[in-house]
């Protein structure tokens, strides 16, 4: 099964595509109506921000509450340090994403579209603003661009709503769904940029076309970011029917024999080298057979001599520093885990360290306002389970050369401010 690289969202010219080129290549987009929700249901499109929630269900909840003043937020924040797919998409195909946003606005009765971006990428901001400017001639709801500090959790949907309502980009605790009360208490759709690009294609070509690629439960193509020990790191559009092995081979293979891989980014799951080749991308199979999530489509391959325990600890320490600092279990739990795992990772664990780590992993799960602590401990826990023997070597104090091997690209310095 070849992964069919770059055939839909990333087909067409390299680099930024103007409105004229875009419309010449794909035709004008149709009008967005309530019927589009049925089309999305038939297409089986699921959200590409990480949760893979059925898109049509999100849309129908907003439509039910909308009185014509709903808000559509295009989430292009991409706080995940290993991911580049939304940035690449918005830089190359802003009109595909904005088509999807306009379709959503029309279908859901929204009077406003907000493109939500991280301040870390000037190129994305420029590409989007240029595209928004070009679209002024079209009769569409007005599009604004909202930028925020680059923080890991700032792209979480309740943080997006908070920022777009003029407050800080920190997650909120609420019992009311944002489909009812989101930005400025208006019904709100927060949708990942890539998902909206798929919407723009499905609205043009229909659900049967979309399902020609991918699997029954995960139809279509998806954007993946390949990083670490691969010859040609970057963003690729792949068929969801493909396996991890096929994707890696088709994109040029690895530099050294992999020591393992992290799928799904900083909230993702670890895999041993032997498991990689046949590993499917289908999100339901990943979940049921491997207890893993595809997340926002990151595959980070560890080089020969690299150590998943060391890498997982680095990631955990970054995520601990990136807590919004609002919830006790996240603030205290991740800090304690980072400190203790620091000792394990440097092969200087103390008595009881690993028992505490395992206990805290369970203790913090599900206790934040958002899923930040859950994702952070999930990633750590999967490394500890998959690389059990290697963990044992750390615990008995055997020096690990992985500590000196360059693994994944280093996490950026923790962000600054929340606006």
């Amino acid at each position, binding site marked *: 099964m070849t992964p069919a690289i770059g055939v839909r969202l990333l087909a067409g010219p390299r680099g930024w595509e103007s409105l004229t080129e875009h419309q010449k290549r794909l035709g004008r987009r149709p009008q967005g109506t309530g019927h589009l929700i049925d089309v999305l249901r038939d297409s089986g499109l699921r959200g590409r921000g990480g949760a893979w929630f059925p898109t049509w269900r999100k849309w129908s909840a907003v439509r039910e509450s909308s009185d014509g003043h709903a808000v559509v937020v295009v989430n292009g924040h991409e706080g995940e340090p290993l991911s580049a797919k939304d940035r690449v998409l918005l830089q190359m195909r802003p009109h595909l994403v904005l088509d999807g946003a306009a379709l959503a606005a029309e279908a859901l009765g929204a009077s406003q579209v907000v493109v939500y971006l991280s301040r870390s990428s000037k190129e994305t901001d420029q590409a989007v603003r240029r595209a928004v400017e070009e679209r002024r001639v079209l009769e569409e709801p007005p599009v604004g661009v909202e930028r925020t500090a680059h923080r890991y959790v700032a792209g979480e949907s309740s943080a997006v709503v908070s920022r777009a309502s003029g407050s800080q980009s920190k997650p*909120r*605790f609420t*019992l009311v769904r944002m489909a009812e009360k989101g930005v400025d208490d208006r019904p709100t759709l927060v949708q990942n940029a890539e998902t909206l690009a798929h919407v723009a294609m499905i609205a043009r070509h229909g659900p049967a076309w979309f399902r020609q690629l991918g699997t029954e439960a995960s139809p279509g193509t998806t954007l993946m970011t390949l990083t670490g020990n691969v010859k040609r790191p970057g963003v690729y559009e792949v068929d969801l029917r493909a396996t991890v092995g096929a994707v890696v081979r088709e994109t040029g293979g690895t530099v050294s024999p992999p020591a393992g891989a992290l799928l799904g980014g900083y909230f993702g799951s670890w895999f041993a080298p032997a498991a990689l080749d046949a590993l499917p991308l289908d999100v339901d199979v990943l979940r049921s057979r491997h207890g893993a999530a595809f997340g926002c489509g990151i595959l980070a391959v560890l080089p020969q001599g690299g150590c998943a325990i060391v890498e997982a600890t680095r990631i955990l320490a970054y995520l601990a520093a990136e807590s919004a600092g*609002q*919830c*006790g*279990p*996240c603030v*205290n*739990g991740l800090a*304690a885990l980072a400190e203790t795992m620091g000792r394990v990772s440097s092969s200087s664990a103390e008595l009881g360290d690993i028992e505490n780590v395992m206990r*805290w992993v369970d*203790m*913090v799960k599900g*206790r*934040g*306002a958002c899923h930040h602590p859950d994702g952070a401990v999930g990633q750590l826990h999967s490394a500890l389970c998959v690389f059990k023997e290697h963990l044992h070597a750390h615990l008995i104090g055997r020096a690990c050369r992985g500590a000196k091997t360059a693994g994944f690209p280093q996490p950026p310095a923790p962000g600054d401010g929340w606006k």
Partner: protein
Amino acid sequence: MSRLRVNPTLCTGYGYCAEIVPELVSVDDWGYPIVSRSDIDSDELLKLARRAVATCPRLALLIEESTRDA
């Protein structure tokens, strides 16, 4: 049916709730409440849960009518 919930962004770990209704609330290693996810199944527990809600100095507790799963 109803459940006790804590808003973790308001809670600073006073711990009164765990004293008042230990059947529903325990504390973690840092003194923050771990609240039971199960339905409150007796009037007596509901009364205690309401007292915990009223006593919380941070107003971080609430009783959620679980007609839908959040």
